[in-house]
């Protein structure tokens, strides 16, 4: 024991010295908050690694807490100590953070590089800039996957989810009114272009719930994106909604007997917001400039099947980095997959989310 202690102290001192040498004092550390898992890995390979190679003075640190990023950022702001430099957020949350004044307003054309053909950034991203604080990155969709071996014939329409006669068995749906209310109304005969008008009335809300009532006792409600793939793999459900990238990994990487039902997939956006009070604003702006240019957005699609947000990136989407398969047919934005699509009405949901959410949960509890 006696001889152990001095030795361990010596070892610790040595270790500390090595650490001290390994970390250059001048390095800028950028804390980038994202979703973790395969998604952060795709960002690491497409954005972080090349950027750090080009800028040896910058170190990018991943934080996987984007799942409750909105709440955490608000808490940090109230405590007056924002430790994040960049946050990955879905469009609806980016809007809310912008409304609350927690993230920086961006002038897209001044900050972001134009497309290779000179189209300004704001046109290249187009309608996807849903908030003045939001820098779009990917288009993803919430859509259905079904077990090919557990259904009598292939599912082709989103309304098949509501058809318990032809496709008996449990279904998994996300535990929130968004998407589910729209699908319910469309399958109850409402014209897709009128969905939000109908949902704005009490009768419309009742109609949507009545449609959902027809399958309520056959639904398992999920809260995390990984749940539906697990439920499908276990055979707990025959069909379930989740993010298209999750289904892609099931089908292409794990070779599960699952097929995509792209019909009326709901498009959603994910992108960057810059927290107010970031201590490295200058550095983070340079990183965002690099990470959202045409080539880098197309690069990300090599690792995960989410569509790049710039129009100019689409032709550059190539093959999967390890599987070598063409990624374009797996993109939610591919013409074959996007015959019927719905873009979430962010403004409408920003107004009605709290109200409908309470009603939805009351309906669930009945």
């Amino acid at each position: 024991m006696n001889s152990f202690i001095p030795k361990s102290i010596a070892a610790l001192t040595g270790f500390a010295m090595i650490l001290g040498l390994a970390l250059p004092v001048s390095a800028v550390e950028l804390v980038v908050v994202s979703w973790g898992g395969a998604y952060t890995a795709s960002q690491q390979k497409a954005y972080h690694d090349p950027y750090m190679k080009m800028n040896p003075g910058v170190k990018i640190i991943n934080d996987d807490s984007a799942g409750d990023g909105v709440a955490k950022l608000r808490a940090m702001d109230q405590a007056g100590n924002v430790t994040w430099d960049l946050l990955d957020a879905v469009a609806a949350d980016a809007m809310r953070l912008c409304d609350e004044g927690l993230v920086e307003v961006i002038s897209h054309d001044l900050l972001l590089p134009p497309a290779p053909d000179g189209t300004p950034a704001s046109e290249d991203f187009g309608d996807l800039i849903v908030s003045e604080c939001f820098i779009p990155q990917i288009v993803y969709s919430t859509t259905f996957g079904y077990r090919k071996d557990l259904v009598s014939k292939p599912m082709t329409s989103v309304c098949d989810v509501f058809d318990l006669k032809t496709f008996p068995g449990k279904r998994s749906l996300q535990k929130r009114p968004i998407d589910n209310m729209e699908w319910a109304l469309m399958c109850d005969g409402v014209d897709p272009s009128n969905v939000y008008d109908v949902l704005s009335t009490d009768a419309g809300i009742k109609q949507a719930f009545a449609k959902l009532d027809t399958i309520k006792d056959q639904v398992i409600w999920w809260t995390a994106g990984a749940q539906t793939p697990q439920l499908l793999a276990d055979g707990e459900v025959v069909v379930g909604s989740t993010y298209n990238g999750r289904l892609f990994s099931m089908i292409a990487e794990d070779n599960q007997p699952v097929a995509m039902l792209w019909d009326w997939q709901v498009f959603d956006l994910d992108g960057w917001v810059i927290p107010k009070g970031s201590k490295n604003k200058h550095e983070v702006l340079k990183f965002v400039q690099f990470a959202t240019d045409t080539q880098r957005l197309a690069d990300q699609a090599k690792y995960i099947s989410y569509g790049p947000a710039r129009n100019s990136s689409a032709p550059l989407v190539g093959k999967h980095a390890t599987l070598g398969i063409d990624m374009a047919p797996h993109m939610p934005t591919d013409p074959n997959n996007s015959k019927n699509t719905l873009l979430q009405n962010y403004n409408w949901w920003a107004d009605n989310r709290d109200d409908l959410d309470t009603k939805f949960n009351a309906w669930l509890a009945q």
Partner: protein
Amino acid sequence: MEQLLTADGIPLKVSLKKAYRREKLSAFLLVAPLLLFIVVTFLIPIVDMLMLSVDNSIVPEILPRTTKNIQTWDPHSGELPGEEIFEAFVKDLKEAKKNRTHTRVGQRLNYESSGLSSLFRSSGRKIKRIRRAPFKAALIKIDKRWGELKTWQILHQFSTSYTPAYYFAATDTKLKSSGEFIILPDEERIYSKLFLRTMLMSALITGLTLLIGFPVAYLLAILPTKIGNLLIILVLLPFWTSLLVRTCSWIALLQQHGVINDTLVSLGLLGEDERIAMIHNATGTVIAMTHILLPFMILPLYSVMKTIPKSFVRAAVSLGAHPWEAFWKVYFPNTVAGIGAGSILVFILSIGYYITPELVGGNTGTFISNRIAYSISISLNWGLAAALGVILLGIVIAFYILYDRIVGIDKMRLG
């Protein structure tokens, strides 16, 4: 009566008081660090939560002129506020737009009436256009909702720095802007139902842990020390295992294609389409939580039973009591302190349980804490979350007082 004096002539009372005071002070200084710790980490957050549940200062701070002027308007008059209130509002909104705070007020008021969030956002975008009077007509031209009585009634109702509105929301009631107090219709009630469910299921879980834990603790207490210690490790081992691991193993066991259903089906006891739904519902929450909280019942029971001399029951039997009677009339009353401690521990722990109901509760097995977490991290309605938290705290304190009245808290023994 003659006054008692100490040797140096000071009255005994004074001298004693002095000595005690010194003792008290040193005792206080000893506990001071702990006291400070409790105040900082426990009392201040609770007071903060109490304040948050009634705080409405955001509205008067961002719209100072409007909230001051609108007091002169009678919301039940059936007429829109006067031009001067509209003028104050246009000034406030212009300033708020400059500070980018107009959307925050919109968010706050949207909790009370859906649609105000977009009304503030879009009006903020267009407010520069209004340069001169008449402000009323100009504002209504920007958005016709400014011409609706309801919008102004909401502004009038929420113009004060404090509001009970979050408590109304947390109890499924509402004070309408017209002044009418209503209880929400049954299909829109959620929080009152969840509070009731949380308490009923917690009581059920407490009962089940007692039913299972009592014989186990009894066995542990009467076995020879060597075997008893070995068995107690079997109680402690799951106790030391992560809560998440235990919850997830229940999912693997209980799901439709899980171990139990698969076994029953392969034995032919169940048909392929008769698999029992034991998880993602109330049953799943009760099973998993009973297992997880069981050690909190067994350990206090065990420590109390360990102290009951074996000679008690032996004496009763040798005096002619039936073994059951000896157990019921002699042994059992001695364990009441342990039952009380175990029950209140399990009940209070389960009332605030969050992870297990979230993972295995489905629709019918989630607790009020899951809605609190939702309000904190998803819907960002922290005022509502605080109000729900205060009510939950109130319920726990009420049960504690009830327990003290019926059983007596001094009788509780944890070991």
